[in-house]
């Protein structure tokens, strides 16, 4: 029968590899059997308490148990919403206002924090208190049999230009489509050993989580601190015999730029997938030189299209000033490049990257307006309903027929692999007492977010207040005070002037 539920991947694997390590961090390992028993136990507990078809907030530290709690949510017919312990309170509160969740699963570290949220009035359960619950197989089978492949399995929150994070909701069908096609391109199998770099509260970790279930592979969660210390990081990869990484570019260039390969080389790596940023060719060559036989694949895709939707296998040489293409869409996905008058762009003509296919997510949770702005009727089809997702990214087809990324349409940037709306930073700065105006710009070359502001507050106080509101990666790297913000003739913030000032400095 055709697969309609993401957890069908687990059914076969649990028979074949019950005692193999599924998910681990540096000092804690969980076998497939443990993940299976605990996720089904917790699922039964959730079902016993009446939770069904609703968001389950998972507020835990990055840990194999957090992943197990994800699966528990899906087994129970609910959808998981991962929240990170390092997210600022104000952001979590905005998310709770959007979700209105009735239940949250925590660990020992987050339990105390969770109890203090004023906007959360639901039940809080500690993972370890409910993970030994006995699974009711009949009940879980019944929940499974009623589930459709168009039912949601998770919500992840992305930066929103109005300052309010948007919750992207994905269903079984789009995730299955993604995992099948990604696995084929990257050639995962049961010997695959992943080292996960990306946070569990974004869609990026789908690349490791579900292929691990599908193939009976193994995923190691790399401690975040290792990404500051390149020698330790490569030693960790070697110790765990990691052969596959799907990382943001800055995690890879951090290793190569510091000449780490003179001290230690990743011995087992065979597949290196990267994305979210431009890979500088100088750094790429260093990787290629130490791992000449490895496969290098560039991935591209928005959260709204379930992770990644395009890939490019690097199989030719690139000059220092060239960019690696984002290539071509996965099987069962089409990329339309639309010009401003909604025509298909010709070769070498820039157009907005629009995505068509099963990979489209369900949209933004409790936000029909924003959903309808981004997920729109295909303008090339006036015969029947057909949605495309407008990414806001500009691309072009080069003379080889490869898709190239050109730029962003609006003020969205990619910084250290994170997607950030500069507007969200400005929104939060403007809300602070004493601030009279602000503007954020991005220095692409030095990879710095630069914030200009005016008002009665010193830089240190401003940064401290922002830390309470924004995630770490959105905090400006440089803060400059102005007597007043430059404005355009129609009274809007003059970003071009800021940019010019910055460059002149």
């Amino acid at each position: 029968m055709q697969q309609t539920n993401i957890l069908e991947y687990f059914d076969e694997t649990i028979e074949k590899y019950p005692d193999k390590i599924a998910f681990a961090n540096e000092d804690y390992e969980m076998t497939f059997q443990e993940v299976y028993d605990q996720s089904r136990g917790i699922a039964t507990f959730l079902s016993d308490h009446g939770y069904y078809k609703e968001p389950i907030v998972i507020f835990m530290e990055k840990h194999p148990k957090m992943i197990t709690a994800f699966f528990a949510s899906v087994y129970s017919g609910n959808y998981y919403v991962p929240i990170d312990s390092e997210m600022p309170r104000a952001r979590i509160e905005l998310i709770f206002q959007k979700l209105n969740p009735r239940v949250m699963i925590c660990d020992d570290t987050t339990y105390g924090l969770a109890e203090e949220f004023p906007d959360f009035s639901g039940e809080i359960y500690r993972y370890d208190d409910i993970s030994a619950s006995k699974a009711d197989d009949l009940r879980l089978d019944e929940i499974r049999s009623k589930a459709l492949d168009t039912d949601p399995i998770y919500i992840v929150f992305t930066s929103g230009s109005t300052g309010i994070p948007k919750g992207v909701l994905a269903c079984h069908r789009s995730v299955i489509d993604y995992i099948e096609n990604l696995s084929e391109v990257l050639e995962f199998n049961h010997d695959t050993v992943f080292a996960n770099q990306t946070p569990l509260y974004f869609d990026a970790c789908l690349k490791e989580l579900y292929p691990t279930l599908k193939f009976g592979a193994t995923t190691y969660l790399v401690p975040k601190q290792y990404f500051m210390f390149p020698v330790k990081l490569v030693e960790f990869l070697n110790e765990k015999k990691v052969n596959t990484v799907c990382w943001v570019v800055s995690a890879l260039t951090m290793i190569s730029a510091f000449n780490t390969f003179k001290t230690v080389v990743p011995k087992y790596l065979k597949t290196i997938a990267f994305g979210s940023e431009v890979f500088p060719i100088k750094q790429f060559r260093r990787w290629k030189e130490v791992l000449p036989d490895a496969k290098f694949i560039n991935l591209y895709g928005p959260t709204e299209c379930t992770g990644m939707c395009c890939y490019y296998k690097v199989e030719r040489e690139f000059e220092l000033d060239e960019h690696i293409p984002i290539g071509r869409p996965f099987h069962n996905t089409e990329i339309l490049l639309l010009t401003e008058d909604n025509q298909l762009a010709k070769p070498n003509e820039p157009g907005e990257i629009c995505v068509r296919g099963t990979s489209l997510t369900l949209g933004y949770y409790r936000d029909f307006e924003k959903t309808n702005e981004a997920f729109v009727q295909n303008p090339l089809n006036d015969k029947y309903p057909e949605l495309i997702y407008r990414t806001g990214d500009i691309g072009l087809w080069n003379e080889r027929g490869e898709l190239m990324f050109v730029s962003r349409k609006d003020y969205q940037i990619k910084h250290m692999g994170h997607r950030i709306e500069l507007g969200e930073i400005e929104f939060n700065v403007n809300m602070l007492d004493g601030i009279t105006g602000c503007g954020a710009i991005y220095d692409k070359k030095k990879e710095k977010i630069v914030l200009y502001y005016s008002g009665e507050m010193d830089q240190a106080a401003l940064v401290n207040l922002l830390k309470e509101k924004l995630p770490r990666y959105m905090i400006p790297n440089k803060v400059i005070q102005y007597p007043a913000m430059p404005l355009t003739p129609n009274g809007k913030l003059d970003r071009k002037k800021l940019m010019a000032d910055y460059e002149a400095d």
Partner: protein
Amino acid sequence: MEELLEILKELHPEVDYETCTTLIDDKILDSFDIVSIISEVNEEYDVAIPAEEIVPENFNSAQALYALIERLMDED
């Protein structure tokens, strides 16, 4: 030392670098900061911090980092 404090202040104006000895342990510096510090130290002092010296102990305080820079300058 002055120049180093400048570099650090620019990244996190809110931190008291004279007294803080837990820049890594308390997650004050992140990987982006480390990358910036290394490249700016390189520009300012003309020393390249080799990969094997990029360890938590050398970045936990301004003092430790300065000691590392001095050691590397002597080796030149």
